[in-house]
């Protein structure tokens, strides 16, 4: 597969999209772990919700 004289523009576009999508995924995954940890810490400190599952019930 030859990308011709403008290969740099094509490759940069695809790399940029890949990088931004990976950053989005990583940000959401890290944020999920952080919120779960904060919930666990609060529950360990004795602050518990009156209804619904606790942090331990989250996968």
């Amino acid at each position, binding site marked *: 597969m030859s990308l011709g004289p403008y290969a740099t523009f094509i490759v940069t576009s695809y790399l940029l999209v890949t990088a931004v999508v990976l950053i989005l995924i990583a940000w959401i*995954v890290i944020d999920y772990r952080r919120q779960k940890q904060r919930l666990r810490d609060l529950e360990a400190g004795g*602050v518990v919700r009156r209804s619904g599952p606790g942090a331990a019930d*989250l996968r």
Partner: protein
Amino acid sequence: MSVRATATITDAMTLIDLANPTRFLSLTARLLPWLAAATAVLLLIGLYQSAMAPDDYQQGATVKIMFIHVPNAWLSMFVWGVMSLAALGTLVWRHPLADVAAKAAAPIGAAFTFLALVTGSLWGRPMWGTYWEWDARLTSVLILFLMYLGLIALWRAVEDPSRAARAAAILTLVGAINLPIIKFSVDWWNTLHQPASVMRIGGPTLDRAFLIPLLVMALAFSLLFITLHLAAMRNEILRRRVRALQLMQAAQVTQASRRSA
């Protein structure tokens, strides 16, 4: 009670169930792995088809940028559309998940809009001879990007999410005026950007060799958005629970210090 009435009540109960954040969390836990897998498979198929697509007789291989530029451009508008529906849900129906959906969608929409602008720019340089032109399509998409950033800033500026929700909902609905301007800018004004070639009266003008990979990539990116959006909504629900617990903790500490005083 008739069978139809019972069915209607059952449907309504299902909608109410979904509005419950706890049920929403258990639903996303079940759905997300499947959605992520479907997105990955579809992206791989789309990327393979994009790589195998023939060169355009005028643009050569740069036509391959279209397969990532167009889905991001579509999603930049689609996400604002989703946020506008969520804004109606906040203002009219006061749906408990509406502002969660709107807040979670904004950074994802901003990312897609940024990618649409940059990949468009990288496509424009070899085809038009310039990275940027202040024409109607490019400028209206840049305004959309700035509106996404403004909305994210608004959500961050107001500490109480329920108070931020109403202001953000109004701003979102005002910003929705930009969507038809973006869509029809290429018809209303003389722009460098080409007119619509897929969503147009009379059907697509693209050859099947380009149209099929483009549609697969568009579907893959749409699934990617749904997956990321559900995951980001889940995070937002948890963030609000953390906030509620922290407020409870602060209230307990205040009560305890009053008793001891």
